[in-house]
């Protein structure tokens, strides 16, 4: 008998006779906030995230270029995806040197900033969600000290429930990595003092477009 069989046997023996497996209990979904955008912004602000709001579907290029200049960023790591390609071309024309999503990790690590799109936002928590399949931005959103993420306002969800209900049997398959990001990287491991930018970005700007 192998380890798998022995563990499962022990679990079965310990649990003994049980009633036929009932329908699994589930938690109630949380009430959505009254207005999504103000809630998103408030929650993001509470965790030291920056935000900029543009008219829906407008081009975020200007505001991103301005923010990159403020950070004195010259080299920019890009996420993947179609809208990102267009944005990347725009940044290239403005003189930023670009690192594509399939560059080596060493290259991505040298970037001054990462620019990516987000698949969704969550108003309840001020969170942006990156889907590995469409965004290919696990490294671009993590290694550089500044992360600028474009969130189409139409992709703003109310609650965590709304995000998670999209996945599972009978729904969409999960990507190999679904990453939820709420504010800049932080730690309080030394005398409980908050320090941002320990391993991930020190600054996070969400551009609501």
């Amino acid at each position: 008998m192998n380890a798998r069989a022995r563990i499962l046997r022990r679990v079965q023996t310990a649990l003994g006779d049980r009633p036929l497996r009932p329908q699994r209990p589930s938690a109630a979904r949380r009430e959505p906030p009254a207005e999504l955008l103000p809630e998103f912004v408030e929650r993001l602000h509470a965790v030291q995230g920056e935000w900029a709001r543009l008219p829906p579907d407008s081009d975020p290029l200007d505001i991103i270029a301005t923010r990159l200049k403020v950070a004195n960023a010259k080299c920019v790591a890009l996420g993947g995806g179609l809208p990102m390609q267009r944005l990347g071309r725009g940044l290239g024309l403005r003189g930023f040197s670009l690192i594509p999503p399939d560059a080596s990790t060493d290259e991505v690590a040298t970037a001054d900033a990462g620019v990516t799109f987000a698949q969704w936002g969550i108003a309840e928590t001020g969170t942006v969600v990156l889907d590995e399949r469409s965004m290919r931005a696990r490294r671009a959103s993590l290694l550089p000290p500044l992360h600028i993420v474009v969130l189409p306002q139409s992709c703003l969800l109310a609650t965590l429930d709304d995000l998670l209900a999209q996945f599972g049997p009978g729904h969409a398959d999960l990507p190999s990595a679904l990453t939820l990001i709420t504010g800049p990287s932080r730690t309080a491991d030394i005398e409980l003092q908050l320090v941002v930018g320990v391993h991930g970005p020190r600054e996070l700007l969400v551009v609501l477009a």
Partner: protein
Amino acid sequence: MSGDHLPMEQFERNANAALADQTQRAALHSATQLFSQRRRNALARAEGFEDWRNQARAIKDHTLLYLDHYLAEFERNATARGTVVHWAESGEDAARIVIELANKHGIDRAVKSKSMTTEEIGLNKALERAGIGAVETDLGEWIIQLAGEVPFHIVVPAIHKTRAQVGAILHDATGVDANASAADLTASARMALRAEFAAANLGISGANFAIAETGSFLILENEGNARLCTTLPRVHVAIVGIEKMLPAVADLAVFLRLLPRSGTGQDLTTYQSLLTGTKSSANRDGPDEVHVVLLDNGRSHMLDQAVTRQSLACIRCGACLNACPVYQQVGGHAYGSVYPGPIGAVITPQLQDLAKASKLPFASTLCGACRDVCPVKIDIPELLLHLRAEVKQGHPTRPAAAPNRLERMVFSAFAFCMRDARRYVLATRLARLADRYFGALLRRLPPLSRWCRGRTAPRLARRPFRDLWQELR
């Protein structure tokens, strides 16, 4: 505090040593008070928290009661997505699986993200013996590793260290000025650990939750090191206790609402990585191989009774540590176990030899503060009493502790008196007389003298309530 584990059998001695360490006590006081306050603030903003607790517990109870089913479902779905699932009966088995994996790929350097489960099985030492260097990358955990210690708290491992102490440790490791600010010390750690990430081909993590219906697992964190550990190295292995299972993706929502609020008072931690299988071939982001080691290591035995089964509902938030009047004073190392505080006092004796951990169920005042703050409503005092009874009376698979004759006599006499009203009245009358004439003396003689060392034994009332009641009625 000394490096390795203090002896668990000597909780009292450890506790007294901890009480004498004023620096540590001051750090402990600020930390536990701050986290308790932050938790209260977070709860004040979260309407429905009580409902979430009940719902989360119901999900955990259900999953644990049908754990065999959900483990098999997890394995099936994870395998279908390209994850390699391993089963480990013990900590040594889990370590062997990781070592074989590293050897197969010719890997001798690994990066680790914070995981209490890997602390539990002593993975770092096992890897070291096999010639594999594993570097902790959570800042607090790295400090602890550099100092050669064990975590002081399950959420904030190095809270007992002052900035000056951390400065000295990081100075040796990174060359940073020992008097640097917390921000500069952190920045030096970022730099040094980035080099480790670049050099390591194996990432080791735990997992907060595993999802049966999709074969996924989820890691919560604030720093980003878990993302680095699960993104950069070629191979990622997650050590996951079998109790981490949840049936469905949608179940995560309620736990994501409970865990950060209870642990650090955040509405949500900075990062959640929900990982499912291997990456699509077109992608350079993420590891080529993903392995999950499902670890038993004593957990399956805890399933057999409802009272002990609830220990497996724990989501390791650390709220019970911050709320515990004993932990608040003595801190994490005094317990001598990987899991300290109230939850440590109940799971350590069950995961390990009860005889070795027999002191831990008694390291509590039974005040119930832990139960009040537990996000999944584990009745820790009930468990403590259950384990105390096991220590004294034995267990089918575990022998009882050596009987204490005097204790037995006292409790037999107590039970004899309590079984009959007349005996009770007589006994209390005698006790009152004894207290009146020999009270001071009795308090200076054993066994009462020992009890009175840290407490004041109140004098018995001259007239019992029973007599007063006759008049008042």
